[in-house]
Structure formats: C-alpha cells, structure tokens
C-alpha cells in the first residue's frame, strides 16, 4: 500500500467532508445570538455566591499556575542544559501569531484524597442541583450535603434533610415538572428532587462551556444552598463544619497502550506484568460493568486524546479507598516502576513482542486512573465546570 493510497483513505474517512452540510441539518445561531449568550456570563457572575466561588477558584488557579510555572521553568532549564539548541526568535506581534495547539498538561495532582473516608460508603440521593460554572449540590438521605466543587460535605439531621428537600420543592423550579419513577442520577445541568414515591426533574441550564443560562428559580435555589447556615435552624445541623469529602469508594480504570495508542485489554496479561502487590489488589476484584459505563467515556487517563477509550481497551474496578491507596503505593513506590503523569499512573512495560507481527516489538504501558465516587457512585469527574 503506498502512502498516497493512505492519504486518500484518510481523506475519505473525514467524518465531515463538507462543512456546509452541518448547517443544513442544524440551524446555526447567529453572531448576535452568540454575543447575547456571552453577555449572560456577566449576569451570572454578578451574584455574590458566584463571585465568592470564582474568587476562591481564581486563587486556587493562581496557585496551580504558579506551581506549573515553577515546574515548567525547572524542566526547561534542565532540558536546556542537556540539549543546547538554537532558539527561534519570538514573534513580536501577537496579532500576527497563530495560537499554537495545546500540549498534554504536565501538572501533578493528588491521585487520591487524604484523610479518613466519609461514611457510610454509599448513600441515597434525595435532591441535587447542578448549575454550570457555579457548582453542584447533592443531598443524601443520610444527611450528607455535598458541594461537589470543591468536594466538601456538611451533615444535616433528618429534619434538616426534610427542610432542604422542601426548599427544593418550593423553589418554583419544579412547578411544571412531570413526575417520573426514575431519574438519571447524575442530574447533569439539571435539578432533581424526590417527592414521595416519585422524582421531579427539570433542566436548569442550557448554557455553554463558558456561560450559564439558568433561570431565576434555579439561581435562587442555588444561592439558598450556598448560604444554608443563614436559614437552616441550628438544631437541624448534625455537623455544620464543611469538611473535605473523602470518597470511600474509588473507581479505578486500567488501560493498556501500545506505541502510545490504546490496545486490547487483557486482564491476565496485565496482572502478570504488574508488581505483585498491585496485581494482588486488582485480582481480588472482577471488572465492574457499572464503573466502565460510568468512567470509560470520561477523558481521564488518555492524556488529552480526542476519543474515548472503550471497554475492550481498558478495564475498570470499584475499589475501597484503602485498596486504591495500596495500588497507587505499589506502583509509585520503588520498585513499582510507575510514574505519575497528570492524574494517572503510567507503568511502562518496555518493548514487548507483538503477536500480530512475529519478530516485531512494541512499546507497551499501562495507564491507571483513579476516580473519587460520590455516595451514589457517580464520579466527581462527571461534573464538569
């Protein structure tokens, strides 16, 4: 097969050969629509709660940026020392510069939470609201009220749970909601509340990646949850302190990559190549179809690849926090051989023979990603900003 043929095949596989065809099926918003949506960013950010959260996120982001800068500078200095190469002159005019594409982030983030796990290990959802770019509150029957950003929990008494649930119902948000017997527990860009033997669920937000278009009822309810201490009676708090929510269960996915691309997942082969202690943790568990359906479509351990990994290319397990800590320690501590790259552990297996090509070898590695789970097992990572 010639490379010209390959080129033709790649061009033929273009999922959108004719950009104008997209428009005929999907009426495009106008430039005016877009600018109008953009204006709602300011509207939303005008609320005090949003400002407070935004400020704290900016502080956190600044800290992360400073750390990244330090790491990057260190790496660059070290790299320059090793490979002296001529530098290209900087382009003097930003207006003439085409923005370069992003590279894989190299930040080091905590893989697993510290501290004692939040108990009980599972919980039944009572109500939830998710407003883009503001946050997610989830209320559980056992009294836990979890603010998913930045993963803190407070605890209410049963009376407190009931009062907050009533606040959801009286917010006006659910006035036109039709009762349903089951909900998508994630409640993405939605709010939901249990009402007797059924659920009420509504969409609260139809914004975009940088803006929200949540209505006043949703914003009002969210504001009330942010300042719960101002209206919930003291007797209805079991523990008013906001403590870090430490997931007792950790969704753990392992993908195998060959020459940098995803490869078929073979559990027995994987276990035979991992350090004994790490293999011991994973071999005690069956693959979890639930975890795979929840976690695999998330772009977690793929280092910024454009496509989700499938269940044939990776396996997911539901571990306790202690098991996950053991697994991470077994891989990262000498002689585990693993390194943390972003939010995953990468364990290289070196060059291995390729059964499909006798005599050929391929660079192989396992990527292990950890996902904190909420009491009803939804992963934190599912709740984007």
């Amino acid at each position, binding site marked *: 097969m010639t490379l010209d043929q*390959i080129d033709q095949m790649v061009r033929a596989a273009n999922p959108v050969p004719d950009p104008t065809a997209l428009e005929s099926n999907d009426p495009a918003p106008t430039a005016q629509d877009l600018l109008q949506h953009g204006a709602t960013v300011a509207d939303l950010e005008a609320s005090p709660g949003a400002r407070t959260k935004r400020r704290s996120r900016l502080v956190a982001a600044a800290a992360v940026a400073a750390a990244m800068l330090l790491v990057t500078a260190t790496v660059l200095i070290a790299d320059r020392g090793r490979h002296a190469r001529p530098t290209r002159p900087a382009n003097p005019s930003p207006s003439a510069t085409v923005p370069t594409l992003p590279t894989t982030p190299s930040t080091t983030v905590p893989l697993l939470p510290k501290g004692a796990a939040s108990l009980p290990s599972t919980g039944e959802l009572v109500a939830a609201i998710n407003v883009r770019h503001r946050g997610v509150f989830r209320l559980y029957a056992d009294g836990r009220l979890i603010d998913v950003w930045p993963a803190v929990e407070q605890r209410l008494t049963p009376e407190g749970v009931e009062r907050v649930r009533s606040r959801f119902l009286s917010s006006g948000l659910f006035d036109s909601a039709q009762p349903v017997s089951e909900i998508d527990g994630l409640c993405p860009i939605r709010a939901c509340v249990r009402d007797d033997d059924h659920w009420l669920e509504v969409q609260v937000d139809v914004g975009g990646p940088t803006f929200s278009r949540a209505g006043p009822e949703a914003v009002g309810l969210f504001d009330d949850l942010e300042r719960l201490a101002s209206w919930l009676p003291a007797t209805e708090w079991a523990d008013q302190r906001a403590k870090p929510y430490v997931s007792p269960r950790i969704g753990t996915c392992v993908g195998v990559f060959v020459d940098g691309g995803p490869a078929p997942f073979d559990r027995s082969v994987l276990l035979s190549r991992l350090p004994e202690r790490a293999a011991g943790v994973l071999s005690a568990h069956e693959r979890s179809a639930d975890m795979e359906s929840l976690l695999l479509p998330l772009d977690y351990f793929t280092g910024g690849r454009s496509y989700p990994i499938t269940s044939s290319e990776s396996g997911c397990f539901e571990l306790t926090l202690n098991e996950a800590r053991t697994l991470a320690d077994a891989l990262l501590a000498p002689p585990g051989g693993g390194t943390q790259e972003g939010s995953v552990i990468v364990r290289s297996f070196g060059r291995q023979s390729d059964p499909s090509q006798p005599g050929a070898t391929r660079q192989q590695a396992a990527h292990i990603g950890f996902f904190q789970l909420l009491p009803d097992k939804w992963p934190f990572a599912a709740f984007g900003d």
Partner: protein
Amino acid sequence: MSVSSDDQRRFEALYDAHRPEVLAYCTRRVSTGDAADACSETFLVAWRRIDDVPPPPRTLPYLYGIAARVISNHRRTLHRRTRLQERLRAFGATSPRDPDVLNVQSERDNDVLVALRRLKPKDREIVMLSAWEDLPRDTIAELMGMTRAAIDQRIYRSYQRLARMLAPAAERSPVSPPITETGGA
C-alpha cells in the same frame, strides 16, 4: 470591553465566513452536540480578541488554534456530556448527523479512524489538519509551533504507521516514497 459597531460588524463577518469550517473542525474531534458548544466558545474567545484576529489567509488557522484550546480545556466537560449522549444512544436517541454514526457507515473508514486513534495525539492532529482541514503544511507548522520539515517528517511517519496498521500482513512491503502535498487552504 468597549464594543464598537465596527468591532461588531467585523465579528459578524468573521462568524458568517468561518463558522462552518470551525464547526466542522470541532465535529471531527468531539461529538456533534459538544462541537456546537466548542464552536460557540471559539467564537466568543475570538470576539474578546477581535483586535488580534489576523486577516486571511491566517484567519482560519487562528480560529483552529483557539478551537483546539477550547476543546482541550473543556475536554472533561465535553466528555461528560459525550457519555450522556452515548447513554441516549443506547435508548435509540441517535442523531443521524452524529459523527460516530457517520464513522461506521463504511467499514474501511472505520478502520482508518481506529488506526488514526492509535497515532500519538500530536501526530494525529497534524494528519487531521492536513487531510481533513486541508491546511497547507507551512500553516500547520506555524499552528503546531514546529518547522515545516518536522511536519513533513511527522506526516510521513504517521502514514507509514497507518500503512502498517491498515495493510494486511501479506502486503506489508517496503514503504513507498514520501507523498507529495496534495492540497491546501
């Protein structure tokens, strides 16, 4: 940000001229619904930087650069919604224009897409920019912050890899000479 009517007119012209290409760029990389969001976000960024948007022929590559960053920055959010779309698909709620559906319309195309997925991310992006966005290699080099020679080499090696992945074992013969550039924006 102070908004002049000139800026607004310029933005409207930019949007009308390039939205289809930017939407297509996004649709080739994420699901249809996410692509619409990413496209809107790309133009919102362009609006905020309207004074920085270069004139043609550099306008579109500039927008692709922004779109790539938008997709990268919001990947987690986008994939969360991709997952939801996949669940909807399980209930039969599939958009006929969904790229995943388009992908499987041809077995051969699907093989190519799977092979593309196995390229390194940067190599894949270069190949896609060349073959799908039809950008000249000099422009790709600028966009990727690399030299033209490096782009040629990356495409050559990527196509070699694709050839190995796509050709039956019996046909794996010595690789033909590098292809010549076939098109440009």
